[in-house]
């Protein structure tokens, strides 16, 4: 079993839709949770950085962590064609720098 599981997609949605991207993880020691966006032939760009459980909002993006279910989500409101990219979740334990990444979900927002 992989430490972080993520559906590869592709996920296609119409412009303006609410998008839900999800990851599950296996290690209950994970405490920091990140979402990165990666455009084709570019490096991952940090979108959200959260600690422990709860929600964090930044503009159209909301990150949600449910440690009891070992489930993390990224919601994108009012999705735009420019949101079309691969979204990577990542996690790590406290006091370590080795991020464990999911394989990424490819999102397509159709105009």
């Amino acid at each position: 079993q992989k430490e972080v599981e993520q559906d590869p997609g592709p996920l296609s949605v119409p412009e303006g839709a609410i998008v839900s991207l999800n990851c599950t993880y296996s290690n209950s020691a994970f405490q920091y949770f990140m979402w990165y966006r990666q455009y084709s032939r570019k490096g991952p760009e940090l979108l959200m950085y959260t600690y422990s459980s709860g929600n964090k909002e930044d503009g159209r993006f909301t990150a949600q962590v449910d440690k009891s279910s070992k489930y993390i989500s990224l919601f994108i409101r009012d999705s735009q064609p420019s949101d079309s990219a691969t979204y990577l979740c990542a996690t790590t334990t406290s006091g370590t720098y080795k991020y464990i990444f999911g394989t990424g979900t490819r999102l397509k927002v159709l105009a």
Partner: protein
Amino acid sequence: GAGVSQSPSNKVTEKGKDVELRCDPISGHTALYWYRQRLGQGLEFLIYFQGNSAPDKSGLPSDRFSAERTGESVSTLTIQRTQQEDSAVYLCASSLDQNQPQHFGDGTRLSIL
């Protein structure tokens, strides 16, 4: 402000050749990381540098891989006697310190013929 800069952006070489990849971290970032991204797979940790401390090389896949960093500046990742399975995107990241989020460069796309 400048982000993490990597060069070259693309590298094509023949099997058996040595390659050197370069990373310029964000100014002031003491921590530097190298990852490998293979098609359809998650990013794979290779090596970590923090200031003048001994690097964590635990992710390097074989002794053909090595990396250096001078102080808190440029790092180079060297792959000797390249093999076809080394074909991947090599990503560099930096952070203010090990407890801060990592910021990535655009990577070097390495193709071994």
